[in-house]
């Protein structure tokens, strides 16, 4: 991966390298019921980023020590296919995958009504099939759909998106090229119907004001994504127009 340091990523008309405006998401598609065996499943695409989520459970935990007497235990695995990245990714779990599995799990602990299912396990398995930036937020979006598809009761639907800063401009839904050269990447996931932000990270440098502005951009977009999720749960498949 050559790092394109000299490339201008915002042109004179304020357009990004793929023609999007700063507050424009990539085309999004959502589909549920894509896997036969899973109790719930979803395939979510943001541009070329493609993430599959499967939910199994509530079910008996594989190992007995994993029982919680008063609630369901969540198991979350964020995993990248070896062919999803520019250079082949080794199948062994990376430190990045371990961290993201944790923050994605924590994005749902307060959302799933775990008290309804004591002594069970709910498994959320996420497979990144193609990575082009924004995989963790696509993963949260796919997991939310797969959980709903599995009939797991939740306080509200969750979706995620990242805001980046490129050449001084805050932009929505950064892709890999933008992430590689940008000054900041701030992934956010939220359940807008109940006002909860469930995943929040910042990699990069922002002023406090930019954090606030970026957060609002993300929350705005998340509202739209949750609307798309609702539509998907009715129609099984939705897509936004091509750029």
């Amino acid at each position, binding site marked *: 991966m050559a790092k394109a340091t000299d490339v201008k990523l915002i042109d004179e008309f304020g357009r990004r390298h793929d023609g999007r405006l700063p507050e424009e998401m990539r085309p999004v598609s959502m589909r549920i019921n894509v*896997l*036969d*065996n*899973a109790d719930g*499943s979803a395939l979510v695409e943001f541009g*070329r980023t*493609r993430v*599959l*989520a*499967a939910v*199994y459970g509530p*079910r008996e935990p*594989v190992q007995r020590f994993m029982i919680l007497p008063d609630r369901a235990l969540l198991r979350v*695995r964020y*995993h990248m*296919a*070896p*062919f*999803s*990245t*520019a*250079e*082949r990714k080794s*199948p*062994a779990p990376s430190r990045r995958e371990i961290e993201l599995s944790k923050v994605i799990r924590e994005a749902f602990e307060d959302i799933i009504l775990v008290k309804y299912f004591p002594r069970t396990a709910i*498994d959320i*398995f996420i*497979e990144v*099939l*193609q*990575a*082009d930036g924004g995989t963790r937020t696509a993963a949260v979006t796919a997991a939310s759909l797969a959980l709903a598809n599995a009939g797991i009761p939740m306080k509200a639907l969750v979706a995620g998106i990242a805001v980046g800063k490129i050449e001084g401009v805050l932009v929505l839904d950064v892709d890999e090229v933008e992430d590689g050269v940008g000054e900041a990447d701030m992934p956010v996931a939220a359940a807008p119907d109940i006002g909860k932000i469930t995943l929040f990270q910042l990699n990069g440098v922002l002023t406090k004001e930019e954090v606030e502005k970026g957060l609002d951009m993300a929350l705005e977009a998340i509202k739209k994504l949750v609307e798309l999720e609702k539509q998907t749960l009715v129609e099984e498949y939705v897509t936004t127009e091509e750029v």
Partner: protein
Amino acid sequence: MSLTPFRVPIVPELRKSTILSLIAKGLRIEERDLYTPRLIKIEAGVVERAEGSAQVQLGKTQVLVGVKVDVGTPFKDTPDEGVIAVNAEFVPIASPMFEPGPPDENAIELARVIDRSLRESNAVDRKSLVIIPGQKVWVVHVDIYVLNYDGNLFDASMLATMAALIDTRLPDYEELETGEIRLKEEKKTPLQINKIVTTVNIAKIGDYLIVDPNLDEETVADTKLIVAYDHEGNVVGIQKSGAGSMTREEILKAIDIGSKAARVYFKSLEEALGERLPVKIG
């Protein structure tokens, strides 16, 4: 170490007897005959950023194969050949029985059977994968990803592997003065494919042989014979897989039955890939 499987799905008695009595009449639960594979859907080029890819549905079994290539060094004993490395992961989205972790003996067996069938048939021309003889060669990583498991991962994975290899385009590159190879964004050169290869999974259930068992059939089967064929009709690999045994006659009959089912698989590859198929299937 290999252990007798102790967490096998239980097929309810009623379903089991249905399967067996249907087979005795020459029929299957999915309304097909004993020697016909399930519905096949092959789609190549499904992971745009990989150098090659294909997704296959065989009934409800779904397998995705991605091919990534990079530049590496040849093995010492084959300095004039590139490397093809096949790996299989049974990711837990695919079945309630799959747990996260390194490949188990089943995933390893699957990858190795496919690897050998490709290697021994010389399906991909490994000599054409040399960049600088003895020093730099293409390393072709074939990653088999099981998305949904309903039996017979062998045939679904082999079809997806074959389609993904045909779909593969090597990146353009330039040799730097330092001897290093710098890859470019463009990917144009297809792999040189000498042979089209498929496996056929033939299960033995009681005194019957059936082709392309689904999960329930695999579970009640005595054993399975996986036979690999090239498009010229040669046998290019065999693996008895599963706990039971077969007689001499059953093995020979299975190889015969399989060669007919192989035509069905070749036909599906032809339909899916059309002109891109580098060899003419009889």
